[in-house]
């Protein structure tokens, strides 16, 4: 089965995390778009995802990582420090935006390296 080539746990996890970083980019875009909308509550990737990922990795089951479905949820831990009930803070959101872009670059690099290794194994050429 050729799928076995791409079932290495670090590769599967990096792939899933790439999806997560794209999803988080959407959440941050939404948060910064609504930075001045009254009563807007900031979105983020659901916090349950991280704990699920932790347990999937510690159990060493890469198949369960592949089937995980990250989704967006209202960030209930964020508190509003403003009179309009909005929970977005511009500075921390900008930091998360940049963190997320770097994270995405790292995951892309990891995937590229994994692919290069597989390619080398298959073709014998780098």
């Amino acid at each position, binding site marked *: 089965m050729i799928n076995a080539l791409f079932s290495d746990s670090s590769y599967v996890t990096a792939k899933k995390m*790439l999806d997560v*970083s*794209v*999803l988080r*980019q*959407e*959440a*941050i*875009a*939404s948060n*910064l*778009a*609504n*930075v*001045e*909308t*009254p009563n*807007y509550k900031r*979105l983020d990737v*659901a916090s349950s995802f991280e704990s699920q990922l932790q347990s999937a990795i510690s159990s060493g089951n890469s198949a369960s990582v592949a089937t995980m*479905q990250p*989704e*967006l*949820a*209202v960030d209930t831990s964020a508190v509003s420090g403003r009179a309009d009930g909005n929970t977005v803070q*511009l500075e921390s*959101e*900008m930091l998360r*935006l*940049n963190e*997320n*872009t770097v994270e*995405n*670059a790292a995951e*892309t690099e990891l*995937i*590229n390296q994994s*692919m*290069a290794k597989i*390619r080398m194994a298959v073709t014998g050429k780098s």
Partner: protein
Amino acid sequence: MINVLSGIDSTASALDAERVRMDVISQNIANVNTTRGLDGKPYQRQEVVFENVLKAQQSSLDSNLVSGSSPEMVQIARIQKDNRPARMVYNPGSPDADAHGMVAMPDINIHEEMVDMIASSRSYEANLAVAKNAHSIAMQALSIGKH
């Protein structure tokens, strides 16, 4: 169409909304001394009201957004008149002066408008940064598999 730049709908809507807000602010500053508008009354300060729009409502075809919360867009709900009363200034020489020589001037505080303008351009910059980051994420995605 596939969404190459993630979250770009929210960002684009915010850039549009901030531009409208900037237009309204510049209109307020421009009319700080307008004592006679189209209706013959002094200019009334205007203000934009932002509201969020669920992206899912906008594009119900986007099936991957069915579960969980979805990214939201922003739009200008309305441009409302600020109903604070006109400021009365003594200026008997003005053609708009009343019997007591008082002229009704728009109650626009230039400092308030400047602060709004700064807030608006900061918000615009933040959204531009999101667009740039979305672009670099898309370029990285396109680089997968290149060697």
